[in-house]
């Protein structure tokens, strides 16, 4: 403790001010209480604030035996100034689905991480892992040994493999959930441990599971296979509760607008008129929904959660291919399976998934995401390889260009033609 080396960090110190919880203050406190790594991290950050450039080297390849992912190598490019963070690798630890933790678990994790690393977490990484930032190469194997033996935990994904699946809180707490999101997340993670740990894909692949179209885990924007809850039957209506909203006894949207005077709740204006399909009717007494026209956008349910609930014949909509911009530009996921029952062991989903993987491993280029491959080969091809019947739900609108590919087998007579016969009829 006596030999802690503090750095002068006037700029970083500015970030201790202001009301929002300060990571700088937290790092400082931890540093002051004995972590040289935290102090060096603040020092290097200050240097970056001066130079306006990162001081981390391009990540080297490190890992644990037998795994192809879960660890990201990281080295300081000013190790002499900040020796305790000269190595500063990331460990991605697969979080329990929906991220509930017992304090027993967390405390034990802190003990381990103070012992084997910097004591700095990134809780959680964008993919969903418990991320621990800052350890050295020699600690990796012992750390993995600790994780598995002392925690029954495992690494998450990195590299060209399945990435750590994640999900919304679902039925654990949310009345909207049409899926056992955690159960699906857990099952997929367990089923595909090999794919998660041993890179065999052209690039990363991500599952995310949301219990309803509110999509609280942002699956539609960030996963190769968004699994999003929906229902096939009718929105359940409690007409009495509807009246309670109309008469101001219940607060619209559960009180989500409480700090501003938006005037009294107006069911016509706030629900009926905003329904994107205009399939709701209100005669002052009874709320009616033409469920066949409903696109299950959740708006009415969100506004009146005590009165409206998703139907009971629940399942998932499966989409494909969301991703960040690199290379071809960002993609939102495309609707592939409008409805699928999601019951253990999720056989239909897995069969579909494996068809996708087989094709992608066959056709995908190095570092080509599934979404990009679908764009390159065309959605019709993707549907063929995954054995899905093309239906209009898959498109915003039919194509506007007339550039249709026909197969030789689809056209009577095929593509062999008799030039002489043609010219007999048509002089050149």
């Amino acid at each position, binding site marked *: 403790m006596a030999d802690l080396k503090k750095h002068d960090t006037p*700029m970083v110190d*500015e970030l*201790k001010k202001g*009301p929002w919880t300060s990571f*700088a203050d*937290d790092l400082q406190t*931890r540093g002051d209480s004995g972590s040289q790594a935290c102090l060096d991290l603040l020092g290097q*950050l200050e240097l970056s*604030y001066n130079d306006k450039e*990162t001081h*981390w080297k391009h990540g080297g390849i490190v890992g644990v035996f037998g795994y192809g992912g879960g660890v990201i190598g*990281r080295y300081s490019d000013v190790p002499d100034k900040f020796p305790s963070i000269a190595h500063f690798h990331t460990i991605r630890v*697969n*979080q329990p689905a929906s991220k*509930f933790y*017992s*304090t027993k678990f967390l405390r*034990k994790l*802190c*003990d381990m991480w103070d012992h084997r690393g910097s*004591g*700095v977490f*990134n*809780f959680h990484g964008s993919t969903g892992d418990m991320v621990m*930032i800052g350890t050295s190469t020699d600690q990796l*194997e012992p750390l993995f040994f*600790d994780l*598995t*033996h*002392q925690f029954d935990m*495992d690494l998450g994904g990195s590299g060209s493999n399945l990435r750590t699946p994640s999900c*919304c*809180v679902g039925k654990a707490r*949310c009345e909207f959930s049409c899926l056992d999101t955690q159960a699906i997340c857990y099952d997929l993670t*367990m089923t595909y*441990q090999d794919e998660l*740990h041993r890179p065999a894909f052209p690039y990363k692949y991500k599952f995310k599971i949301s219990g309803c*179209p509110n*999509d*609280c*885990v942002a699956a539609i*924007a*960030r996963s190769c296979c968004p699994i999003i809850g929906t229902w096939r039957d009718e929105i359940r209506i409690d007409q009495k509760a509807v009246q309670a909203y109309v008469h101001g006894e219940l607060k619209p949207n*559960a009180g*989500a*607008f*409480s*700090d*501003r005077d*938006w005037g009294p709740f107006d069911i016509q204006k706030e629900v009926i008129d905003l329904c994107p399909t205009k399939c709701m009717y209100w005669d002052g007494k009874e709320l009616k929904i033409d469920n066949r026209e409903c696109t299950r*956008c*959740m708006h009415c349910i*969100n506004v009146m*959660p005590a009165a409206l609930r998703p139907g009971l014949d629940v399942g998932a909509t499966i989409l494909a291919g969301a991703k*960040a*911009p*690199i290379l071809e*530009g960002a993609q*939102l996921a495309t609707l592939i399976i409008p409805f699928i029952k999601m019951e253990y062991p999720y056989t239909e989903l897995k069969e579909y998934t494996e068809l996708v993987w087989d094709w992608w491993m066959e056709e995908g280029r*190095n570092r080509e995401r599934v979404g990009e491959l679908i764009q390159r080969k065309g959605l019709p091809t993707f549907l063929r390889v995954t054995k899905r019947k093309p239906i209009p739900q898959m498109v915003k609108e039919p194509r506007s260009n007339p550039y249709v590919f026909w197969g030789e087998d689809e056209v009577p007579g095929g593509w062999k033609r008799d030039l002489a016969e043609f010219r007999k009829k048509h002089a050149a």
Partner: protein
Amino acid sequence: MLDSSMYKDDIGYDVSELMEKPYDPDFADKNYDPKKPMQNRLTDLGPPHFAQFFPEVIKKNYGEWKTHEFVQPGVIKYTSESGDVCYVVRCGLPRILTTNLMREICDIADKYSGGVARWTTRNNLEFHVTDEGTLKDLIDFLKSFKHPGGSYKLPIGGTGACISNIVHTQGWIHCHTPATDASGLVKSTADEIFEYFGSHKLPAKLRISMACCLNMCGAVHCSDIAMLGVHRKPPFVEDDRIGSVCEIPLAVAACPLGAVKPATVEIDGKKVKTVRVNQNRCMFCGNCYTMCPAMPLADAQGDGVAILVGGKISNRITTPKFSKLIIPYIPNEPPRWPSVTKVVKRIVETYAKDAHKYERLGDWAARIGWERFYEKCDIPFSEKSIDDYRLAYDTYHTTTQFKWSSHTDNL
């Protein structure tokens, strides 16, 4: 309702016994032999089963929740079919946190929420309590729970029509490709719009995200407001190093625009394989650097922050949308990025004043028209906001329908 019996044999199905044992710092050193890595090795365990960490009230009412209500900003009351009630207190948390703060969180959870803490998908922390007395005590405690510098350690909020936690990436604190810092920029922005975190006064949820480079580790591409680190100088090439640290064909293939070509140069009389970058074709995506450490892009003068707005994820009313780039570049101004935070705040406030109830930022902008958005938010329109990439044509205005605005006033 939740049947997990089929996972009984999974090793992580019940880790309670293990958790009773304290961490043994010597265990690995004693049992792991680097020469025989397969000895005693456990692999492919996966994560522990989630259900074991659930609070009691959740175990009992799984799938039986009936409705919810925001008791106050940051506090949600869930009611079950069984009549059970569960209060959730949500708190802001920086994603970067130390074992210090984590242990304090454990203390709080032990005291107030039955020893369970939960993280949300936007990195907020949640405590679950079942009685109003504890709820009140917890809230009171959190209000006075502060860092030495005065910031709230766990500010309450993030529910309803608010700005929730700003999701972000690693930045200068840990990544090798960033064009800006993440934690510092996000802290500065969160301070600026703090009043909207703990209140319900916006027209709808407003999600702010941050990514430090075009890799966009997060949902920056679909956020109401996004701050994005951007490079603006082409990579330079370390001829003397590239051959040993990169696979040249991979570096060449990495460039989406074919701006990287193989080349040969002479160094000390020796012919060396390397690459050359056609700088006029480069769009600074950084993909070459991802593949090849000998092609760095980072540059103090070149790098900075772009602002995107109008994206969303949910399918509520309108369909999910991409964020649109409205400001191509603001210089990096650590530690407080005042130009960025100022404009973010201005956008938030203009939106707050002008949008309809339930209307997300992008839907508002589309309704009033982008010319009006720029005008109202007092943001200069830049040529750089006109798409010229692959699907550019689909963003061009192919109608005579437009509004008069400050842009046309002096035609």
